């Protein structure tokens, strides 16, 4: 149902006329992270609402990554059951305090100022 409700939040492609889609210039600028906050906010809002444009950006990512991903192994955490597993974790703590439930989650970013943001990832 999460998938269904997420999808329901977006417009059906046919409801969006072709001349109201993001153009190639905006799509490529967004893809290259060239847009400032004020520029990207309406673009992101459009990508949330428009399945066509979001699909284009998703395909561009795949297109781009195909060039270099051949040798990259798929890690265990690529399992698409992550959300399900998270809800399982949540369920395990249902009825107890929220802190106990979420203590199971990691890393506790908001309460633990690390030495750096992403460096820890590099060791993985």
């Amino acid at each position, binding site marked *: 149902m999460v998938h269904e409700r997420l999808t329901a939040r977006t417009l059906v492609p046919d409801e969006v006329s072709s001349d109201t889609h993001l153009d190639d210039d905006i799509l490529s600028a967004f893809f290259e992270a060239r847009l400032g906050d004020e520029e990207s906010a309406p673009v992101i809002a459009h990508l949330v609402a428009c399945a066509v444009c979001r699909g284009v950006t998703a395909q561009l990512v795949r*297109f781009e990554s195909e060039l270099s991903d051949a040798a990259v192994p798929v890690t265990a955490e690529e399992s698409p059951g992550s959300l*399900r597993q998270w809800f399982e974790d949540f369920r395990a703590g249902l009825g107890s305090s929220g802190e106990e439930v979420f203590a199971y989650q990691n890393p506790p970013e908001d309460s633990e100022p690390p030495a750096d943001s992403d460096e820890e990832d590099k060791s993985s």
Partner: protein
Amino acid sequence: MLLQKALYQYNSLTLIDNRPGSAAISSEAEYHQNLTACAADFDALYARCAQAWPNFVVPRDEFTGAVVRAIEKYLIAIAKSRGTPSISEIRVFIGELQGPDIYLSLGCALGDENAWWQFDRQHRAFIEALANQVVSSGIDANQVIESVYGDLLGAKTESSVRQSKFRTYMGRGTLRGWLRTIIWHTSVDLHRSRQPEVQLEDWSGTGDDALERKDYAAAADGCEDLMLSKVMRERYRSATVEALDRSLAALDDHETLLLLYYHVEGLKLRQIARIVEQPRSAIRRWFQRKSRRQTDSGKSRVHESTVMRWLDKVYRKISDAFQSELANKHGLSPAEIEICLDLATEDLAQNIKLNRVPGTDEIIKRGEAG
């Protein structure tokens, strides 16, 4: 007048609210004043580009007009919440533009042979490599290349003037990035012209993981039906849908887009990481601001685990809102909330044994009896 024309032209392109912006129009004089104050920046950029491409000349007014159009598209039409761009904002914007790429694309749009020679020399191999990468069955890479070059040359004419696609390049992103998008779109168009009924996901063959994810719903249905009767499912379904919709609606667009990329578009974590790996990525900056993990992130990469952490935060937010909604608005007990959790996540289930909380079966029996 120029500003009004630009607003009209670009609002229709960008899905931005295109009602007459009286505030924007009233500040037209201020905008032109600010633009004039940046004349030295225009000159400097033009000089730099002319130096980069000494073999051909793009008239100064053509170049200036293209930069102004880019300013009006991005700083005014798209970022309209910002108001009239200030002098410093215009200067920063001009500094960020891919000037030499704009100059080259204008030279080509004007039909300058030397410009075309330079373009071909710099980008032909790139276009061919991408075309070969993107082709699918039934389409020859040469067809893609020919079509792309046709659009760039201007196969269509308007008032006897060739309408080169180069005119739509604004220089906010790189020319290569723009070409990549053009090539991808051209390939899709060619493919559709042969098989109009084929969906985007089916075309590239790269959407397999997304399709696999959607299969989970079917796989989950069997065991789910054993656990919950149809009657009970219907009883809690409306509450679940309402609570879930409210929880999702409470998310920021950045969070929703992340969920959509992962769960609906089926992008893998490392592919999402690729979208946000640029330090200037809007999604990356948003999550870093929210996480209070303010660091000099310019040099650090975004890895899959970072994206997973962001997703975790979004899940937590959804779950908090979901639980609160069911408990406070619908008055459901923890056991009933668990049933709703089952319903909410059934499309994500994949042979995971559910840990039911005590009392759930009793509730189901009572519900069935009622």
